[in-house]
């Protein structure tokens, strides 16, 4: 009896506040927009009995999804979200791997401090970390002032409100998610394997590519997914650092809902976004499962 209550409380909470809301999104994505409160049609009226329920289901259709497919804006937004997420993931890997490698080769008594230093930004506000770049990247911002002063450039660069600023924002805020899993695999790496490779005639560089990189693959894959998956649906970074022509689907959904008040289309955008995300999420889960099994 007690066990049942223990299970039921969190179970019902998640059903009511996670699963049911999501089903509502799916339902509204199949409805039509209407000038009413709430602004969609049909409404389910249970008091009407079976006939009303049947009528309700016959009114649902895939019109909104057809609309998404026919309108260029949504295609472009999904594709550019994927592109921006992919490019920033690769950039994060490029910057994160050397940092993780440096941490793993630091003296053992230094490592906890380095770990704390990498995790610490995560505890400060995400919004503030994104905002901190606005003063640096703007037309008369610190970066331009510095570069003009040193004479590297003669005209200020336009970085703010472009896709480049979005890349910088994503790399900056998600860097710890890349560093930590790679560091975890590198730290466990057996140094004698590298010595063996060198004894057998490998140069240090080829030992790195033939031993270190393959052995740290689980960490690299985990880090890439941890950056790629949240970056696709990102809203704060493109709306603060990106320009009006930086299309990302999280921002499109937000505007569809708050500015255009088109709930059915916003819901359809959400359903398609989730369908796209399922592939990397399943791949990520499989990678984690494999690592757990390998660890046992």
């Amino acid at each position, binding site marked *: 009896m007690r066990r049942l209550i223990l299970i039921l409380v969190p179970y019902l909470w998640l059903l009511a506040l996670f699963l049911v809301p999501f089903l509502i999104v799916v339902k509204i994505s199949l409805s039509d927009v209407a000038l009413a409160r709430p602004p969609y049609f049909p409404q389910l009226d249970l008091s009407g009995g079976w006939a009303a329920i049947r009528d309700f289901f016959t009114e649902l259709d895939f019109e909104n999804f057809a609309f998404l497919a026919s309108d260029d804006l949504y295609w472009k937004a999904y594709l550019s979200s994927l592109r921006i997420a992919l490019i920033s993931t690769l950039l994060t890997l490029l910057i994160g791997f050397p940092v993780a490698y440096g941490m793993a080769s630091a003296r053992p008594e230094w490592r906890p401090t380095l770990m704390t230093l990498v995790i610490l930004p995560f505890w400060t506000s995400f919004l*503030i*970390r994104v905002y901190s770049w606005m003063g640096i990247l703007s037309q008369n911002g610190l970066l331009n002032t510095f570069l003009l002063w040193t004479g590297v450039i003669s005209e200020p660069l336009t970085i703010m409100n472009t896709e480049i600023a979005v890349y910088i924002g994503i790399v900056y805020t998600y860097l710890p998610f890349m560093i930590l899993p790679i560091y975890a695999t590198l730290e466990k790496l057996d140094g004698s394997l590298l010595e063996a490779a060198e004894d057998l005639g490998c140069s240090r560089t080829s030992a790195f590519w033939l031993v270190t990189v393959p052995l740290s693959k689980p960490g690299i894959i985990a880090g890439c997914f941890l950056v790629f998956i949240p970056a*696709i649906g990102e809203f704060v970074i493109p709306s*603060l650092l990106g320009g009006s022509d930086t299309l990302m689907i999280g921002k499109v959904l937000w505007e569809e809902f708050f500015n255009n008040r088109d709930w059915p289309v916003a819901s359809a955008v959400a359903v398609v976004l989730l369908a796209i995300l399922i592939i990397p999420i399943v791949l990520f889960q499989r990678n984690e499962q494999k690592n757990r099994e390998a660890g046992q």
Partner: protein
Amino acid sequence: MRRMSGFNIVSLTFGLAFLYLPMVVLVIYSFNASKLVTVWAGFSTQWYGELIRDEAFLDAALVTLKVGLISSTIATVLGTMAAWILVRSGRFLGRTLFSGMIYAPLVMPEVITGLSLLLLFIGIDLDRGILTIVLAHTTFSMCYVSVVVSSRLASFDTSLEEAALDLGCTPWQSFRLVTLPIIAPAVISGWLLAFTLSLDDLVIASFAAGPSSTTLPMKIFSAVRLGVSPEINALSTIMIGIVAMGVILFSLMSKRTMIRQQQEERDAARAEA
């Protein structure tokens, strides 16, 4: 791993500088007398004064704290229960669905979580305000708590609980006297994580909040949407300062407990000898 090479030192330095420089810049410019971002017009604390006089920020900070404290506490209780179910409860009907519902919010884009909760609140005609933000924050942060707590639960020896039950404890007593003290560090870090996530959240709160309740991130977002604002620099500096102090205190405390534990272990070993 091998010793530090020059390359490692350079990449570590650059990596850490990249992580910290933007925040250092923010802190320095919060003391700038000029309203312009780039022109340094001497040291001044005027923006802090203007921030304190701005009651809208104070109200938003109070709403944020209230939501954070309530939601993280409920989330810790629910998340610990969920972790217990996942690790200890064996099989029950709908277990796969349950673990799916625990892990899905972790990877769900915030815009979708926010949208779906808002549609629910409108659907059941719940007035939007502090209550709805608390419900929304509790739901996603309980999943984070349960992941943190379940990894701790999975790694400890169940024979301790069995011993407590054999010696006549009720299941609740064995949980309170044996399990809880062992998993306490994970429960505390789960609470801290839930609290931080709640203080930090902009997207879900924007969907769940009504016109009368504004959280601090919502206020910051609307203030910086059009560009840099010196008051927000001052506010950011205060928030960074609080986090830094919290982390320093926390690490000092954990170091002290570690030293005490080592001392006790040494004493115990000596007593045995």
